[in-house]
């Protein structure tokens, strides 16, 4: 970027303040301006962000649908499973009244990590050119 190279041997001055205030005062960057002015390039960037996040959401929902939708089907098609035991307890109860909850939390944690990573990547792309 042409404006950023003028350092003249001195260390660049860094403004220390709350990140939100910094965001408000930072001079407008051309790439975010593409988005602000809704140019075709800006639209492409926006659509790529939305598509990335949507794909992630869809992936989580598909896995969830397979697990949650598959369990009744499994009990329907494999009747022995309804009465099978695990640690002395019936399998449907072990899964539905126990294991599924930590699985939800794990899935949510992984999702949050990836969604934040996607946003960081997008922000880096916007700010570093």
């Amino acid at each position: 970027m042409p404006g950023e190279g003028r350092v003249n041997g001195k260390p660049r001055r860094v403004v220390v303040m709350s990140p939100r205030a910094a965001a408000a005062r930072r001079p407008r960057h051309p790439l975010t301006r593409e988005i602000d002015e809704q140019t075709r390039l800006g639209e492409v960037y926006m659509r790529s962000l939305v598509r990335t996040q949507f794909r992630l959401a869809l992936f989580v929902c598909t896995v969830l649908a397979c697990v949650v939708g598959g369990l009744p089907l499994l009990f329907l098609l494999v009747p022995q499973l309804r009465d099978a035991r695990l640690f002395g307890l019936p399998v449907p109860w072990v899964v539905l009244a126990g294991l599924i909850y930590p699985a939800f939390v794990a899935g949510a944690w992984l999702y949050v990590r990836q969604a934040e990573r996607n946003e960081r990547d997008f922000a880096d792309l916007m700010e570093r050119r």
Partner: protein
Amino acid sequence: MSGIAAVVLVMLATLLIGAFGLRMARTTSDFYVASRTVSPLWNASAIGGEYLSAASFLGIAGLILTFGADMLWLPVGWTGGYLVLLVLVSAPLRRSGAYTLPDFAEARLESMAVRRLSSVLVVVIGWLYLMPQFQSAGLVFRTITGAPAWAGSLLVAGVVATNVLSGGMRSITFVQAFQYWLKLTALAVPLAFMLIVWWGDGSPALPPGDDWILPLHGPEHPVYETYSLILATFLGTMGLPHVLVRFYTNPDGRAARRTTLVVLTLLGAFYLMPAVYGFLGRVYGLPASDTVVIGLPGRLVGGPVGDLLTALATAGAFAAFLSTSSGLTVSVAGVIAQDILGGGVRSFRVATVVAVVIPFALAGAARSLPVATVVGLAFAVAASSFCPLLVLGIWWRRLTTVGAACGLLAGGGLACFAVVTTIAGGPRSGWAEALLAQPAAWTVPVSFTVMIVVSLLTPSRVPRGVARTMVRLHTPETLDVDRGDWHPRFM
């Protein structure tokens, strides 16, 4: 007697904490959203406290005891709904800046007609949810005191109205967070004692050949009903008015996601317990009803300790009535005040009274179904109306005002019709009964289809500012971009 003491104690604590919050509620915006200064754990506890209603505290254990393993899906769906909400809705919804669902409809679709339609649906869902809370308050009050059922309903309705009138949202946040931990304790401590007794009895199991423990054995069409229940609960959570308000108190979209993750953990911990109550109730042969959580500790433990545990469970139940009812009342009253009465703190007060009195009257008039069943119907309405609006509104640019309105009317209208027929005592058997008692499996697809097809047929009605709205919904707050100038109207 200790049961009554517990009820009085919870009511007093709720009012006192409410009064503590009152000193801080000064401006209108404070009154509504606690000025967004609520920390994430407080916020997550408050969401949990608000969400765990009588249906969760009493109703699930009662239904599991009555119908067996198929009802295990109810708590699973009420937790899993937050996972769906997290991935599809939480961050964009917070970034939209909308405070209520009608706000979101207005911000995204730039249409007052869709906003008004959403307002009506919020009020319907809110009242459908409030009515069984008041009903089961009456039931529990009658169980512990012998007083007529309306007395218990009146008590809860009165405390809720007072609390909302005096403190607004800020006090509600403190109250709700307190209520989550109270409810967790009130379910966990008696359970620990009862498990010790059960273990001391030689861990009795169910008699062999008891079908109760098997999935898919219950009603006439167990497979259909199971899938419909799953759809309603997983998709309905995002459309509950009192849940969405809480997301506004997060400082940004990232915090909204993290809060949802904490909520999921808190709810998962809570929902491990009702199934065990249902199981113990079956083993010890308790009659199937919504009061099994209250009755079980006295039956198993007995003596003064049993009395104390019963009192604790009763306290938890009243915490559940108060917390959910308060949250719903704030949301319904906010919508009535803003969209019907024209706004301002005074109309919020009038609206609060209206928001409480009508479901209280309905609670007396309507036939009494299990609390978790009626709340399940509220989920079905939310899943068939607000779920498509939110999901398509956030991720699909081609959604039009006409499409959204038609989808809300078709899905919400059909679900409401099914719900009213069921509550009024419609068909008692066959496919008609199953389709009306668990409508989500057909009303949700209808709603999505209508919204998509009508939107594709009316391309000229895509809101003009949709590109800017997409920027607002999806870009992280750290980026300095133009997000448009829409703000929710704080009366």
